[in-house]
């Protein structure tokens, strides 16, 4: 069973012209876990991954697998499997000959080609020209390329894009299985909801900079707690809140009070003699935390 290596970004920066696409990015990705690499479109995810894979030269900093740069790996495809967003196929080649070319280049046994095609569910389409593939099939073929060398590290850029619901369910299980086998799995996405069922850890970047790093549960914070409260006599309730110095806004289902303490609101209402019809704590979701971190998610 291949074992994963630690992916390490150390102060990676990349400037295109005068624009910083990635700025001083440092983090590590551990084996045996699925790590989500998240950020809005244009945050620098793909550039970071291409730097990691030696396809793009960093302006400064290093990115390594177990301390070794990609271009110095003695057996790159057998160490790291990568599926990048762009469809990188000659449309006139069949899936089988497409993978065959790179199996030859990497010195891998030709039997791997049909094995990985079966693994991603493309065995029946192995002899079909890739030009006729649907987006979902191309995603699977990209994944098959990543698996060709049975690598200990998987780097997947937006692997869920274009998959049908059945494919999404399949890839979630697939990612979990890969990590359970001890591999390092790094998956990028611009939607937390797309990967939140699969990932253990999250690395969030926005505008080329790291904004959050930690286990998925670390996103489950309540930075700005709110409680929804309402009354048949909304004006009296509003007056009571104002008197107690609690700021609020008017929401669809009642007043959104800026406190995480429903008991205190209940007590206030009781003292003011205001009848309550609604009182519950509004819990910020993971997605909300994510959107707050990446700056309101304007580019989503």
């Amino acid at each position, binding site marked *: 069973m291949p074992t994963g290596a630690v992916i390490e970004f150390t102060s990676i920066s990349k400037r295109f012209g005068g624009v910083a696409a990635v700025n001083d990015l440092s983090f590590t990705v551990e084996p045996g876990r699925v790590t989500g690499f998240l950020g809005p479109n244009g945050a620098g995810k*793909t*550039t970071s991954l*291409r730097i990691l*894979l*030696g*396809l*793009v*030269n960093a302006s400064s900093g290093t990115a390594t697998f177990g301390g070794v740069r*990609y*271009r110095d*790996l003695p057996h*790159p*495809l057998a160490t790291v499997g*990568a599926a*990048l967003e*762009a*469809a*990188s*196929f*000659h*449309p*006139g*080649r*069949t899936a089988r*000959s*497409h993978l*065959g*070319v*790179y199996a*030859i*280049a*990497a*010195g891998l046994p030709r039997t791997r080609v049909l094995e990985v095609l079966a693994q991603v569910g493309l065995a029946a389409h192995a002899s079909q020209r890739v030009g006729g593939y649907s987006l979902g099939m191309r995603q699977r073929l990209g994944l098959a*390329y990543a698996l060709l060398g049975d690598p200990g590290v998987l780097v997947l850029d937006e692997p869920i894009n274009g998959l049908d619901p059945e494919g999404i369910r399949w890839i979630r299980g697939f990612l979990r299985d890969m990590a359970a086998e001890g591999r390092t799995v790094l998956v990028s996405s611009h939607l937390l909801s797309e990967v939140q069922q699969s990932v253990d850890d999250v690395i969030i970047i926005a505008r080329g900079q790291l904004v959050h790093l930690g286990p998925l549960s670390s996103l489950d914070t309540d930075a700005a707690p709110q409680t929804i409260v309402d009354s048949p006599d909304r004006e009296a309730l509003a007056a009571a809140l104002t008197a107690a110095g609690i700021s609020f806004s008017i929401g669809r289902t009642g007043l959104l009070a800026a406190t995480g303490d429903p008991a205190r609101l209940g007590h206030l209402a009781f003292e003011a003699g205001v009848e309550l019809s609604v009182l519950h704590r509004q819990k910020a979701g993971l997605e909300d935390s994510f959107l707050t971190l990446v700056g309101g998610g304007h580019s989503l």
Partner: protein
Amino acid sequence: MIIFLRCVSAEFAKIFTTRLWWILAIVLFCYIGLLAGGLAALFAGIQTGVISPDAVNTGGGSTDFGSLPPLIYSFASSVGYVFPVLLGALATTGEFRHQTLTPTFLATPRRGLVLGAKTVTLILVGAGFGVVALAASVGLGGGVLSAFGVNALLLDSETWLLVARTLLAMGLWAAIGVGLGVLVPNQVASIVIVLAFTQFVEPLLRLAASFLEITAKIGNFLPGAASDALVGSSFLNLANPSASAPLDWWQGGLVLLGYALVTAVIGYAVSWKKDVT
């Protein structure tokens, strides 16, 4: 070394798993076959008197074309050379166009090695195109000559040297195609340059250069002229017999190799080693 050999066989697989190579090979065979066969019939007919010299307008000039077989056989390279150039340029620019540089460089991160392997592969496949072109020019052209009773010189060692040098020329032309492909990665631009240069610009330059002794010497270093010097015969020399002495065959070969290397090295710097996004 083992990695380089793997790269070469991967490059072979790339060429032979798409349709381009055999489409070009078929067109090459038909084109050269038609030209060599047709002109062999015309020239041999005139030379043997089957076609009256009065029936063709030779401008009052000589109807002595020298030894016909080398002239006819050299159509393989003097006209067919555009095909290996196209193959090399398309094989290289296709990597940019279809973004297959990504899986290629992931499998082999040492990019110089990949470009070297591609060049070696295309030299061999280009020589294969030479075989196809010679099958047309020697096979069909020689057959027509024999039919007119002209000695096709198939047992002549000079003929076989010409064949060998044609294979070398066609291989080098494919390498020049690779160099052009990395120099101008845009596929459409590359094709336009190949066609415009080989079919129009260079023939005109060679003609213009031949008017003065000094420019004629420079004109000998044009790639097409160098190729004809390498092969040792060309209809273009026939059209222009007063041109200064061409390069020696080995000089012509070195000039072609030089074009291939210079374009590849510059192309490596301007496109091949750049970021793959």
